[in-house]
């Protein structure tokens, strides 16, 4: 009579199963949404006066109904928008043609030169949403690069390596100054 192979103890099988279950539970991410987060301005009151902004402080970005781009009155291409916006928002104290600058003091950062420039974005009702997102994305990219430059200058670190306070300081020193024009009622 041959020796019988002893049966494998299966009582721990369930534990292994639960272990695997826990592993998958923690590693699988439910479908996550990503997007460009923006803050809408409060509604305009009827009797609000238009804020006068100096012409040198404004960069006009207009998109027409056939998705063509007009930057400061000149026809342009979306691939140039990021560099133009970044160039516009870079503070230059001694240049009469670029936006005014002011010096503000922040904790952690010290004195920072801030541009008073505003990027004004205006789109037509016929502009496609894809184009609108592209423009928003390119503008966001310009500001993110400015933040990145600032982070490197002040802390010698990339934005994603900064701690919470440092990130907050940089975000305050480089505000996203994009203003969307009120829709025109025809």
């Amino acid at each position, binding site marked *: 009579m041959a020796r019988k*192979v002893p049966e494998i103890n299966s009582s721990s099988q369930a534990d292994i199963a*639960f272990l695997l*279950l826990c592993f998958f539970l923690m590693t699988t991410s439910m479908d996550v949404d990503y*997007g460009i987060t923006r803050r809408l301005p409060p509604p305009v009151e009827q009797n609000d006066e238009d804020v006068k902004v100096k012409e040198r402080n404004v960069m006009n970005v207009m998109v027409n109904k056939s998705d063509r781009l007009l930057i400061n009155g000149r026809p342009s291409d979306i691939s140039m928008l990021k560099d133009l916006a970044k160039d516009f928002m870079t503070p230059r104290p001694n240049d009469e043609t670029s936006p005014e600058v002011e010096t503000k003091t922040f904790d952690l950062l010290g004195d920072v030169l801030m541009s008073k420039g505003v990027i004004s974005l205006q789109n037509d009702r016929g502009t496609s*949403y894809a184009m609108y997102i592209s423009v928003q994305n390119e503008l966001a990219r310009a500001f993110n690069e400015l933040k990145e430059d600032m982070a490197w200058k002040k802390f010698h670190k990339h934005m994603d390596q900064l701690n919470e306070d440092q990130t907050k300081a940089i975000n305050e020193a480089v505000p996203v100054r994009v203003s969307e024009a009120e829709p025109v009622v025809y």
Partner: protein
Amino acid sequence: MGKFRKEGKKEVPQVSTSSLPDIVYMLIFFFMITTSMRDVELKVKTAMPKATEIQKLERKALVSSIYIGPPRDTKLGTESRIQLDDAFARPSDIADWILKERESRSEADRPFLTTALKVHKETRMGVVTDVKQELRKVGAFRINYTTLKGSALEN
């Protein structure tokens, strides 16, 4: 030439099947978790544009979505429509809907409510502007243009 050994001499014990239910349960749980249950039935197409400068939408419970796009049912035309919850809506319905969404959240969470705009890429901005104006009126200032990951220049 080897001889085939006679079967049955050394009997291999049957594999225990008592753990099979566990494995099945595991699979069930796994699929339950990974399949995202869609809380609304989409009546509009939402092929979203791509962007690179994107942030993760944290705390899904505090996000309410507005879908805008051409209807899936081609009989309804190709003009972009707004979908709130399970039905088509007009821009004037948004204020009430936002108030209802606020009502369903706890007091402490209300200031952090975000409205995600899930908009088809071929939609004209006119509809989106109308929606944004309505959101401003009702004080829902935190918005998120939900996009896919990818270069925005390819849109």
